[in-house]
């Protein structure tokens, strides 16, 4: 259970009353590390907050899209900002995490620390 960016179920922080939307996620492992994609439509670059603390990765996305003008006829969207928390694999080098957001999808690269990458040891003569 100590591996991967495993989600800790905490959609609403216990000390807060604010409601959050849970962004849909895609997580995959590549040779160099993990790739985490989060769907956060309405969030611009300035609206993304990423923090790492105690092997816990928190991603918050503040929406900057305005509500539609006029009287509502049909509504499916939720106005809340996004938030999701993941437990980090200790193998992840938290100092080298990078992030970008494009078309409302945030992409985080979580590289593995050099020391945990499988390696070949050459036997010397």
């Amino acid at each position: 259970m100590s591996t991967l960016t495993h989600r800790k179920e905490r959609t609403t922080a216990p000390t807060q009353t604010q409601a959050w939307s849970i962004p849909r996620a895609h997580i995959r492992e590549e040779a160099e590390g993990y790739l985490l994609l989060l769907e956060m439509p309405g969030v611009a670059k300035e609206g993304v907050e990423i923090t790492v603390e105690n092997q816990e990765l928190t991603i918050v996305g503040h929406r900057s899209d305005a509500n539609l003008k006029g009287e509502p006829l049909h509504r499916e969207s939720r106005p809340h900002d996004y938030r999701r928390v993941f437990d980090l694999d200790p193998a992840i080098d938290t100092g080298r995490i990078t992030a970008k957001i494009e078309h409302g999808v945030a992409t985080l690269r979580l590289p593995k620390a050099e020391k945990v990458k499988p390696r070949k040891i050459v036997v010397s003569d």
Partner: protein
Amino acid sequence: MNIIRYQEPELSSSPFGRLESLREEVNRLLENPFFGLNRSGGLVSGWNPVVDVTQDKDFVYIKAELPGLKKEEIDLSLHEGVLTIAGERQREHQQEGEKVYREERTFGRFQRSIALPIAVNSDAIKAAYRDGILTIELPKAEEAKPKQIEVNLS
């Protein structure tokens, strides 16, 4: 004894991992009771983007969440008072040696059709796309707007 600490990721096989993902699915269902249902009520595996519609005196406004799509990948059409938003979200090509741990995103073709509440001036529709959100402004047709009739009482 371990010389190099290497942990085999086990999320997909661990019973805790499975329980955890089941719990998440349930939470997601509770959060949005219509998740996984299309408008006709059947279960669909495809993508059904979120849409809002509002209106004021002069316009009908539509907003659709299309995260991950490029502007060029969105098709908009208006036919007999029905506005259709369509497109396709491509799944990324998977490379060898990759392991997918979690896939909550949906891919493939989508189409949402919205019957407009009133006739609109189709030559003056404006659409903008930003941060995965499509917004459309449709001016109501003059002849469809309610009119004030002045009655002169003498």
